């Protein structure tokens, strides 16, 4: 058993390969999370600032569409489909676009809920002192909105980091892809077990932090 799933020799050989994958997973996360947040920010601020049907309905359709679209399908469609449209892009760029569309929609909904949780009196007070719409959003509403939905934002971020493993299907050499390479080279599942352990070590502090924030939010509500 131990020789099959936790073979020390194979782990030693696979480690450098996994490390390269970890580097790519981290790089992907560092690019994709801010990108998704940016998309979400644009969607949520637009949705809460303009109530005109011509803005609202297209935005709602956009968000609904990309939340309902399985990210794996979206990713494969982009990777397989774009070359037919004459657009050659790397797996990395593909993952970035897919995640921008998918997680942007999720972050957008979370931030919209946060913005709507800030009482309208805050905006009125800010506007009455002469702050413009954008200034009011930036300095008064958004800081409170983000604080109100911080656990949800963090939870979504956790999901995004986990979902970067989808990059493996478009030959993006992230942690899971590298682990599978190592597995097929060694005919042994130890690299996969090792990859799972690396994911756990990477994400567990975030999970702990999330729990603490959630408990604090619950306590504050009492």
């Amino acid at each position, binding site marked *: 058993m131990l020789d099959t799933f936790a073979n020390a020799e194979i782990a030693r050989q696979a480690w450098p390969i996994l490390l390269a994958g970890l580097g790519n997973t981290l790089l992907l996360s560092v690019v994709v999370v801010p990108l998704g947040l940016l998309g979400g920010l644009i969607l949520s601020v637009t949705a809460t600032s303009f109530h005109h049907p011509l803005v609202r309905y297209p935005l709602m359709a956009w968000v609904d569409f990309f939340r309902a679209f399985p990210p794996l399908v979206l990713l494969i469609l982009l990777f397989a489909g774009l070359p037919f449209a004459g657009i050659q892009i790397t797996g990395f760029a593909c993952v970035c676009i897919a995640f921008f569309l998918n997680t942007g929609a999720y972050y957008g909904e979370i931030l919209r809920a946060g913005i709507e949780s800030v*009482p309208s009196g805050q905006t009125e*007070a800010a506007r009455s002192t002469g702050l413009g719409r954008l200034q009011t959003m930036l300095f008064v509403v958004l800081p409170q909105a983000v*604080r109100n939905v911080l656990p949800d934002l963090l939870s979504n971020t956790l999901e995004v980091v986990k979902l970067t493993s989808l990059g493996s299907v478009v030959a993006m050499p992230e942690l899971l892809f590298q682990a599978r390479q190592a597995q097929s080279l060694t005919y042994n599942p130890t690299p996969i077990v090792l990859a799972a352990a690396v994911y756990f070590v990477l994400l567990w502090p975030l999970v702990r932090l999330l729990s603490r924030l959630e408990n604090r939010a619950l306590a504050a509500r009492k």
Partner: protein
Amino acid sequence: MAARPVVEARGIHKHFGAHHVLKGVDLVLAERELAFVIGPSGSGKSTLLRCLNRLEEPSSGSVMVDGVDMLDARTDLNHARQRVGMVFQSFNLYPHMTALGNVTLALRKVAGKSSAEADALGQSALARVGLADRAGHTPGQLSGGQQQRVAIARAIALEPRVMLFDEPTSALDPELVGSVLAVMRDLRQSGMAMVVVSHEMGFARNAADRVLFMDQGLIVEEGTPAQIFESPAQERTRAFIGQIQKH
């Protein structure tokens, strides 16, 4: 020639859908004048106040503040709003900032002061409301009365030409009302023009130049506090004053 009024609102109408909230209201406020607006809830007092700085868009009418047409599309509204301070029933302090942060935000972002200038002006505004030693506290660490005084400091720091008070003491515990009224009285003595919507009849009696009674979207009657409280001409005014004085 009489001095130009600080506020000159004429023929203000406001509809909320089918609801006709203001039905042609005039309000002219002279320099250093304090106008006190009373009336039953739903009479349009707050809406009138909010039309003066265009937090509500009047359906028709004109609003001039310090000679600036507030409803003109060419008016820089954000600039004009610095001239109109507003204090709300629920304080509306920014909970994520300190008292000083609340006071200095618009000084920095709208009036374009440097951080050092804004801090100095903010400190002196806080000192004027008796809270110089609370500059570093967040709203959550302050009592309701202190919060409302910070809100007043936030407005007066911009050196407005007129201050609008929308039921400033209605959300306060009775023992905290006095401190807020004291600040308002002090402001009045300094010559600030003020429009106050409130139920503090004692304050109206000894601080107001003029009392306006509103009902159903119209100013029914206006006069000196003595006229309105002692010998109102209109039946509706008499009924309202009678009801209030029973409490």
